[in-house]
């Protein structure tokens, strides 16, 4: 292994600019003549707009223009499109109401866009917005998914009776019911997957610019997938052909899913920049992020797991209500279906599974994919019910899991819910984690904690997830309206340095380093000679962006394939220069040599010949050395692992401290261990945050109660432990690089480990369930209710 090749913890190339304040985030961009937009938003969860009076605002100092939904409608603009269509069990397509960038006559969630004020300064735009008079007639609202289907619930859309978006199933219900009926034991669970607010630290921002000399538009935006935004906004909303629209996603300060989607503000600033003939910048304030970024999770579920007398799983039945919010965000409908229900087998050989998912509209901001997207919800359900089953059956947590694990040699494994896991070793991961966590010593630690007056518990989560999305043909058959391949372009310059163009986008993942390692390793050139370019539709040929842990598993392979083409062409040039047969040319360590001889040419000599083709096979070969590859995988990528969480609970305060967190994950093959560990750390923090701290709360009237960092608890440094990590890598046969995704596993595996640990700690009190987030008041209350005698003290 070279110091900069595959497997090395190369320090990141991108760090220097971030550490010296030279990053280039969207809000750092200022265009000549730039104006500022402020968006007036609905204070109501649901209201009819009788009238909007902008006259006073228009006369305010510095105001250039004010637009409302009527102005956009007059230009016959489209609504924000949804990229995935789900069909209900009766074959009917999901209900897909319109999603205007600026509403016309009705608002459907707090924060809905009502008008945009464009002024010389942001201060002037805000001042003017206060002068806009909107005559609202407030209407009753519904926020809770569990209540949205009730007959008397306020309706979000006339075209979606009962607030039902779709009623989707997978599996054979009658078959599963029959097994449940005759089973030795059935474990039942009811749980909520709490609604989360992604809160990437960089608020969303957009700068729109129209070039009147060419008629071209440029949008700078905080996006994880600029080409997707170009496609969605250009084709569906603004009707601008792709060659007239450039989308740039420069440095982006975290995404976690929330920056995948096409948002109204992007369309508004782009469209309006032509109207006023000046660039327009909009940057979200954090309170706007809270009420307009797509949220995550928000499921209400009941489930039953049937077992035989030995604890072997026989059947699993799941009923889930998933909140879509007021409108369908870009990928929302696929999250609780194809990214959730297809993972309900987990790492177990449950032969029969049935799931019914009903997606509902509510008067809340749209819900879409958030780190893990569907797989955390599935994993939380499966690992909670498995842990509960072990307690009910009186079996050790590890033992019940082992009895049901898919064994290493049983991969590839066809689950009853559509997926074929290509490789894995659940038992191997668990064994390693148990050792690393000193499971054998746990009971002693529990006793020692009890002596200090603390409840100590250990929680298990053994998971698998499907990422690296995805095979286009598969997702297409499941309702995706786009392909999910990736593009990589490798441009070898005359001197032998290389620029890589990737359709993925890095917003913290370190692609500029990891992808440069791939190139340095394969082409045998110094890593300093490799530059990775992403995030600009004018530079990168095409791309589907970064989400679903797909960048390396899909985008990395595209780069690798492009390098194969570069090497193939370079071999032809080398054969010519070395006067040898092409078949005799060997490429190794950056040198082309004739097999069995000492005749060779360095990589840079070949690239130079490609661009200075004086002595060149010009009749057979074009000059230049630049290749593009598109890669569409044949299967998803299946990382998995075992997460063990140890907590200590203070009965006097209800505070849960994560004292130890062990994660052993299977990533197939690791390119940069340092970066991969960082990804796991970040995912674990978000998962532990979901389990202990984070909750998005709407009140009965649809008002967002947790609208700032003062009300929504973000994980802070003192809420988290040091993590104890290891890997147990089983190469992925279905991936040409052998890699599996790593970006989301932390958020997928950890929440059930934490909650199972709390339940384990409190089980001596007879407590068998606690909901997320397990905040101190909730835990304290649970302890008091379980120990009434203590409460009376």
């Amino acid at each position, binding site marked *: 292994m070279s110091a900069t090749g595959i497997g090395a913890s190369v*320090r*990141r190339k*991108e*760090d*220097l*600019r*971030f*550490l*010296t*304040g*030279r*990053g280039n*985030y969207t*809000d*750092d961009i*200022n265009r000549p003549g730039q104006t500022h937009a402020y968006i007036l938003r609905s204070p109501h969860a649901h209201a009819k707009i009788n009238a909007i009076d902008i006259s006073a605002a228009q006369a305010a100092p510095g105001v250039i223009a004010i637009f409302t939904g009527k102005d956009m409608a007059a230009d016959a603009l489209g609504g924000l499109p949804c990229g995935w269509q789900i069909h209900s069990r009766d074959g009917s397509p999901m209900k897909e109401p319109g999603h205007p960038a600026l509403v016309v006559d009705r608002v459907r969630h707090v924060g809905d866009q009502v008008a945009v004020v464009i002024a010389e300064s942001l*201060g002037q735009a805000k001042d003017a917005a206060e002068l806009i008079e909107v005559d609202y007639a407030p209407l009753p609202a519904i926020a809770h998914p569990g209540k949205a289907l009730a007959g008397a619930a306020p309706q979000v859309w006339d075209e979606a009776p009962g607030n039902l978006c779709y009623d989707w199933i997978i599996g054979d219900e009658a078959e599963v019911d029959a097994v449940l009926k005759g089973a030795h034991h059935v474990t039942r669970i009811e749980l909520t997957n709490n609604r989360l607010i992604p*809160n*990437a*630290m*960089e*608020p969303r921002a957009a700068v729109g610019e129209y070039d009147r000399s060419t008629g071209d538009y440029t949008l700078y935006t905080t996006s994880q997938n600029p080409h997707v935004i170009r496609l969605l906004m250009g084709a569906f909303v603004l009707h601008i052909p792709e060659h007239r629209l450039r989308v740039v996603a420069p*440095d*982006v*300060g*975290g995404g*976690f899913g929330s920056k995948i989607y096409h948002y109204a503000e992007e369309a508004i600033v782009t469209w309006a920049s032509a109207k006023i003939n000046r660039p327009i910048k909009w940057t979200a*304030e*954090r*309170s706007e992020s809270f009420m307009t970024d797509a949220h995550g999770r928000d499921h209400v579920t009941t489930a039953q797991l049937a077992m035989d007398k030995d604890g072997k799983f026989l059947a699993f039945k799941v009923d889930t209500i998933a909140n879509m919010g007021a409108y369908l965000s870009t990928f929302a409908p696929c999250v609780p279906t194809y990214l959730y229900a297809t993972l309900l087998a987990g790492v177990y050989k449950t032969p029969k599974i049935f799931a019914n998912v009903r997606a509902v509209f509510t008067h809340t901001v749209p819900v879409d994919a958030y780190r893990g997207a569907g797989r955390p919800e599935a994993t939380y359900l499966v690992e909670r019910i498995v842990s509960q089953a072990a307690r009910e059956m009186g079996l050790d947590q590890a033992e019940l899991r082992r009895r049901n694990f898919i064994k290493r040699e049983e991969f590839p494994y066809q689950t009853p819910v559509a997926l074929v896991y290509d490789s894995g070793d659940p038992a191997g991961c668990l064994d390693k984690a148990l050792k690393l966590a000193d499971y054998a010593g746990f009971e002693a630690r529990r006793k020692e904690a009890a002596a200090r007056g603390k409840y100590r518990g250990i929680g298990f989560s053994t998971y698998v997830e499907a990422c690296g999305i995805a095979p286009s043909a598969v997702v297409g058959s499941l309702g995706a309206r786009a392909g999910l391949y990736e593009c990589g372009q490798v441009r070898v310059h005359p001197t032998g340095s290389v620029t890589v163009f990737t359709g993925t986008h890095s*917003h*913290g*993942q*370190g692609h500029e380093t990891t992808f440069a390692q791939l190139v340095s390793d394969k082409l045998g050139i110094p890593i300093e000679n490799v530059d990775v370019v992403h995030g600009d539709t004018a530079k990168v040929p095409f791309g589907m962006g970064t989400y679903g842990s797909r960048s390396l598993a899909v985008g990395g392979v595209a780069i690798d394939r492009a390098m194969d083409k570069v090497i193939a062409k370079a071999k032809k040039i080398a054969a010519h220069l070395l006067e040898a047969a092409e078949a005799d040319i060997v490429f190794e360590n950056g040198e082309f040599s004739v097999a069995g001889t000492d005749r060779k040419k360095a990589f840079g000599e070949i690239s130079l010949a490609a661009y200075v083709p004086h002595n060149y096979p010009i009749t057979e070969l074009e000059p230049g050395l630049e290749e593009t590859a598109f890669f569409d995988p044949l299967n998803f990528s299946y990382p998995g692992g075992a997460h063990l969480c140890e907590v200590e609970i203070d009965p006097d305060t209800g505070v849960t401290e994560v004292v130890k967190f062990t994660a052993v994950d299977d990533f197939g093959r690791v390119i940069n261990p*340092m*970066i991969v*560990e*960082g990804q796991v*750390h*970040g*995912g*674990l*923090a*978000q998962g532990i945050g979901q389990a202990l701290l984070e909750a998005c709360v709407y009140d009965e009237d649809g008002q967002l109660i947790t609208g*700032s*960092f*003062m009300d929504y608890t*973000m*994980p*802070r*440094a*003192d809420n*988290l432990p*040091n*993590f104890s990590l290891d890997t147990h890598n089983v190469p992925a046969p279905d991936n040409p690089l052998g890699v599996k995704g790593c970006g989301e596993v*932390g958020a997928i595996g950890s929440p059930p480990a934490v909650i199972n640990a709390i339940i384990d700690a409190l089980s001596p009190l007879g407590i068998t369930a606690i909901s997320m987030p397990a905040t101190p008041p909730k835990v304290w209350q649970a302890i008091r209710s379980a120990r009434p005698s203590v409460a009376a003290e």
Partner: protein
Amino acid sequence: MAISVSMTVNGKTVSGDVEARTLLVQFLREQLQLTGTHVGCDTSQCGACVVHIDGESVKSCTVLAAQVNGTSVTTIEGLANNGTLHPMQEAFREHHGLQCGFCTPGMVMSAIDLVKTHPKPDEHTIREWLEGNICRCTGYHNIVKAIKAGAEKMSAA
């Protein structure tokens, strides 16, 4: 209503006209184009905006530009010395203490201030100190490691 302000920023004297409501962070980002200092919230919670005013870490979204007239301000852009990274910057790089980089300037500025009062901070002290700095990417594990290492280097220097 414009107010004239003058201060030293990263060793250079700067002056400008600001509105009474202009925050220091706005003055730095918009008038001086020092965009390394970030804005991550509107409730003074995230710490992305931390700079040093006369050597002490301050959230630059909580002070008005007019209030710091006559002071000496250091931002993330002013830390490296002729291209040599400050030991704390170097430690963040070495220990992968940053991912998207958005919280990073505030983290680094805050960490340097910590070391002033705690030359050898232990993990607990570091985690408590970071109460006012939120990172959504790293899970803090490597930030804590970086600050420990950075503190050691600073104390050794």
